[in-house]
């Protein structure tokens, strides 16, 4: 930069020289355009890379001065070796051969005293060229420009002026470029640092991205592994199940194998027993020579079973799955299931039995538990039935006591009459007739109650539901009458017969009627009314018999509705809460339905629907 003032003065030299201006306006305007173009050069070059500027300078020189050769050597602003480039008219191929050309121009390019006219041979043709040599920068330190032309007039004063101007511009451009390069370099360093930081950041980001990617990848792998694990577990489970199954199968085989074989003689005493029997803690040897019923422990309890078994044996018939009880050596109870077939010799003589036995204690015990459960349920149902009847006790007692009281009174009256001197035989006859009638009446009540209390449930048989209703109405009649309740019936004549247990159905109806009677007992007299309706309802699967017991009593609330048929749910102070629950189970065991609806005005209606017999 310190060189600038000097160079400036040098650069200002040409304007101080006299420039002959052309006489015609056309040439003048052409020259003006060239000058304007030169002024525009920095703008054209601005922003270009420093290395590109020599090329741009040659371009401008060649076009404006119509040169046959142009050469430039410039120090690289970046500091490396000088850039040399040349342009030869008509030989663009020589552009890249600046050094060769420089060699040809050796004199002109090395001479420190430049800025003089000289003659150079044309690198392409060898023709002599008139050339100018101009230094770039201070004392040519930054470079040199050679311009040559075949024209003998070259360089005209104006061409020299243009050349100088262009080179000045080139110097400015090159300086700017150098400056720019330096700046760029400085910036580049800073940018480099920044770039490093950015790179670090980016690396970090990349790292993160990588991590993320790896996490995703790992997750994917894990889930794959998980899937594999799962399928492996499933597979293992399948394998285990298969194993269990096969174990079970083996166990079954083993248990089958644990069955023991036996043989008995013509007198049915054991002659041979296989060793498996020892597994039950029974010594096979101890059983030889004795019969099955000698060591069975249920002979006295179940004589009928044993009578049948012995009869089978005596008839030499095969038997299968005969179960009996015995005891093992330690006294524990063992149930044995045995099957056998008779053996005959060639002459058809009975030799005894051969067969197989197995320990069925577990199955029998499970069966006993189940049976006990069933019995308990049946007993509960029976108890409830009895309890319901207990609630009926007043009515029943009344039913029996009335005729008994009458019988007692009449019999006493008869004794009084017969004790008289002249007995009033007509009165005695009248009283005795009444006694017979009341006796029959009491017996009828007893019979009805006995059927109701019957312990063993009867098998389902064809039933006429109307008949069942008629059975029950007299039982509730007194209870209903005593509370001033009116009972209306509406029974269609063609109700389909149903399959059922008459006693159980009576029980259900009795329960519904007593509930209804209780519901209306404390309501105003005009509402103390029950209606029993029996109707036929055609359904998809044939006709159904539907009985509805309707009352105008206290009814049930919405909250109670879903619980009505629950066991142990009751709204009555002394109720067990079993009535409706058992009623429903009875009806459902008849493939029927039992449900309740609230009446629009007062009370409730219980509906009982049973499928007709097919």
């Amino acid at each position, binding site marked *: 930069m310190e060189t600038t003032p000097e160079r400036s003065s040098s650069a200002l030299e040409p304007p101080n020289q006299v420039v002959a201006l052309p006489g015609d306006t056309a040439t003048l305007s052409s020259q003006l355009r060239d000058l304007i173009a030169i002024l525009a050069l920095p703008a054209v070059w601005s922003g270009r890379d420093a290395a590109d500027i020599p090329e741009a300078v040659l371009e401008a020189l060649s076009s404006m001065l119509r040169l046959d050769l142009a050469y430039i050597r410039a120090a690289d602003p970046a500091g490396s070796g000088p850039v040399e480039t040349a342009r030869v008219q008509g030989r663009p191929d020589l552009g890249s051969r600046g050094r060769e050309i420089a060699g040809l121009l050796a004199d002109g390019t090395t001479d420190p005293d430049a800025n003089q006219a000289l003659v150079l041979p044309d690198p392409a043709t060898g023709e002599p060229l008139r050339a100018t040599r101009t230094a770039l920068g201070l004392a040519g330190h930054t470079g040199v420009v050679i311009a040559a032309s075949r024209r003998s007039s070259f360089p005209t004063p104006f061409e020299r002026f243009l050349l100088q101007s262009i080179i000045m511009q080139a110097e400015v451009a090159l300086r700017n470029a150098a400056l720019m390069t330096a700046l760029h370099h400085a910036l580049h360093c800073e940018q480099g640092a920044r770039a490093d930081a950015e790179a670090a950041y980016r690396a970090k980001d990349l790292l993160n991205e990588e991590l993320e990617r790896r996490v995703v990848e790992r997750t994917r792998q894990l889930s794959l592994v998980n899937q594999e694990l799962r399928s492996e577990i499933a597979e293992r489970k399948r394998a285990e199940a298969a194993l269990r199954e096969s174990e079970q199968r083996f166990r079954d085989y083993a248990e089958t194998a644990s069955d023991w074989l036996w043989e008995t003689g013509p007198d049915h005493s054991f002659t041979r027993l296989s060793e498996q029997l020892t597994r039950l803690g029974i010594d096979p040897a101890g059983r030889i020579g004795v019969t099955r019923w000698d060591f069975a422990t249920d002979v006295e309890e179940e004589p009928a079973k044993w009578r049948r078994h012995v009869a089978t044996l005596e008839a030499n018939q095969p038997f299968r799955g005969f179960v009996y009880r015995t005891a093992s050596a330690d006294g524990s109870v063992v149930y044995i299931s045995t099957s056998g077939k008779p053996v005959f010799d060639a002459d058809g003589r009975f030799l005894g039995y051969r067969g197989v036995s197995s320990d069925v204690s577990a199955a029998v015990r499970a069966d006993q538990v189940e049976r006990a459960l069933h019995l308990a349920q049946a007993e509960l149902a029976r108890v409830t039935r009895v309890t319901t009847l207990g609630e009926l006790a007043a009515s029943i007692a009344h039913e029996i006591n009335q005729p*008994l009281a009458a019988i007692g009174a009449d019999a006493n009256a008869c004794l009084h009459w017969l004790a008289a001197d002249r007995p009033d035989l007509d009165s005695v006859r009248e*009283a005795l007739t*009444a006694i017979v009638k009341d006796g029959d009446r009491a017996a009828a009540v007893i019979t009805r109650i006995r059927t109701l209390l019957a312990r063993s449930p009867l098998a389902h048989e064809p039933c006429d539901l109307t008949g069942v209703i008629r059975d029950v109405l007299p039982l509730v009649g007194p209870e209903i009458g005593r509370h001033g309740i009116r009972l209306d019936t509406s029974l269609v004549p063609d109700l389909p017969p149903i399959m059922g247990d008459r006693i159980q159905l009576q029980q259900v109806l009795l329960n519904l009627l007593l509930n209804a009677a209780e519901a209306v007992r404390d309501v105003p007299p005009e509402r103390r009314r029950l209606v029993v309706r029996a109707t036929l309802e055609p359904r998809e699967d044939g006709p159904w018999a539907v009985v509805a017991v309707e009352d105008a009593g206290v009814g049930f609330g919405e909250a109670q509705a879903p619980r009505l048929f629950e066991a142990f749910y009751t709204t009555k102070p002394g109720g067990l809460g079993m009535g409706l629950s058992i009623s429903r189970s009875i009806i459902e065991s008849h493939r029927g339905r039992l449900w309740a609806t609230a009446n629009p005005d007062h009370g409730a209606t219980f509906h009982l629907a049973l499928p007709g017999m097919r």
Partner: protein
Amino acid sequence: MSAEIPIVFVVDDDRSVRDALRRLITSVGMTVEVFPTAQAFLSAPRGDAPGCLVLDVRLPGLSGLDLQRELANTHATLPIIFLTGHGDIPMSVQAMKAGAIEFLTKPFRGQDLLDAIRHAIDRDRAARMERQELAELNRRYDTLTPRERNVMAGVVAGLLNKQIAAEFGTTEATVKEQRGQLVLKMRAGSLAELVRSAGRLGIAPYDSGGTRPK
């Protein structure tokens, strides 16, 4: 009056029981009237003879206990024997408290019912006699003058004629004369009988505020 033939009323809704009771009661020579409902019994005219009521507790419409209450309200004193189809303890307690003679559970022994009926009739007869005697005493007491009633109160309180005379500010001779009159009117054979009659009539013995502190 006691010579009147007693009558037994039976109310039972069960026809065979009703008829059997009618036969049993007539077989021992008593008169019986039977009714199927309480209303029928109440609306039937009843004579003034001694008797009793054999009543079923559970009756359609008006119940046995309702009828008992109804009779008590009309000051009818007919003794009641309750019959029930089953031993209903709270009901029997209620019935006995309300004055029932007997509470029999069906089936009852015929003799027990007849004994109860006889007992009830005796009770009714005695009660009737009691009521008639009281009515006679009241009739006699009504004939006494106010002064004679005062003297009677003094006599049953155990005061001497002299004391009575002092209490009422009269002479001993006058008291003596009035005393003779009232004993005659009350037909009392002795002082003891007069005192008993006063007791039955509910006459308070004279309380001389001057001689005894209140």
